[in-house]
């Protein structure tokens, strides 16, 4: 399974994501610069965390129009696996690939801690290796992670089982404690916590490994079947 890690001006978790694919999955992975216009050779796409374009205007608002994003949208429509972490999640929201928007954290602080999050749906391409309601220790680091959507959207998210992760002790004011959601089709996951920073005991937690392992396992199963 070949992975692309998108690199935008201001990405700062691209190397961590690259290492996660190499170390946890031992799969081929490339950095893909935001000005590239081809993602056809890739099976999985990661939009990493950071502060693309300095978070100018709104986090993700400018990155969303980077040339590579047309290809990300195309890959999304083809059903390819797309994982947006932190700023990557914000970009997916701005692009309309996931519903809702991010607001400033309700305490106005940049929060950099390790949070307990629970797996609310382990029937996704990204979480099948976890057990239901498993508690994970995953770092967060953001100022705009206060997820918002209108009531109608929230009802739909619940009905379609799109809420994948919830915070145990909501740190930022997110609606319904939401830490991560998938699209209706289930091939796009956006999450504020950083699983790529929780892949080794040296980093303090290994709880993020199964996000990557789930992606690979499901991809292999799909491709063995076809």
């Amino acid at each position: 399974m070949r992975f692309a890690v998108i690199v935008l001006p201001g990405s700062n978790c691209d190397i961590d994501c690259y290492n996660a694919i190499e170390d946890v999955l031992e799969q081929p992975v490339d950095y893909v610069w935001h000005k590239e216009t081809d993602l056809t050779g890739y099976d999985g796409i990661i939009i990493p965390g950071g502060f693309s374009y300095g978070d100018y205007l709104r986090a993700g608002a400018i990155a969303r129009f980077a040339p590579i994003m047309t290809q990300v949208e195309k890959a999304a429509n083809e059903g390819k696996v797309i994982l947006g972490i932190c700023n990557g999640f914000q970009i997916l929201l701005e692009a309309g690939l996931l519903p809702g928007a991010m607001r400033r954290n309700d305490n106005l602080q940049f929060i950099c801690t390790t949070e307990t999050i629970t797996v609310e749906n382990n029937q996704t391409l990204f979480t099948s290796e976890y057990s239901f309601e498993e508690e994970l220790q995953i770092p967060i680091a953001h100022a705009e992670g206060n997820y918002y959507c209108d009531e109608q959207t929230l009802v739909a998210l619940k009905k379609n089982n799109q809420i994948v992760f919830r915070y145990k002790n909501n740190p930022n004011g997110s609606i319904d404690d939401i830490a991560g959601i998938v699209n209706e089709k289930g091939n796009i996951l956006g999450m504020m916590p950083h699983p790529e920073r929780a892949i080794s005991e040296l980093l303090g937690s290994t709880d993020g490994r199964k996000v990557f392992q789930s992606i690979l396992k499901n991809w292999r199963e799909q491709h063995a079947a076809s």
Partner: protein
Amino acid sequence: MYKAKVYVTFKEGILDPQGKAIKGSLLTLGYDETEDVRIGKFIELQLETVNKVTAEVRVKEMCEKLLANTVIEDYTFEIEEVEQ
């Protein structure tokens, strides 16, 4: 040449933590009349369009596509003719 002044604010009912903090500070300063504070953005654009109507159409498009996130924000704008 036209000048557009775009104002972006949070929609009614969207929590505005910055506004809330500023309100707290104003009350501390003794401005007891402060009922509510909303923070927004002000964006000024210089535009070269054939007429004002075109400028309005284009600015509306800019707001919808980029300048505001209509999930959480509202926008208004004014356009005036200016000398080059």
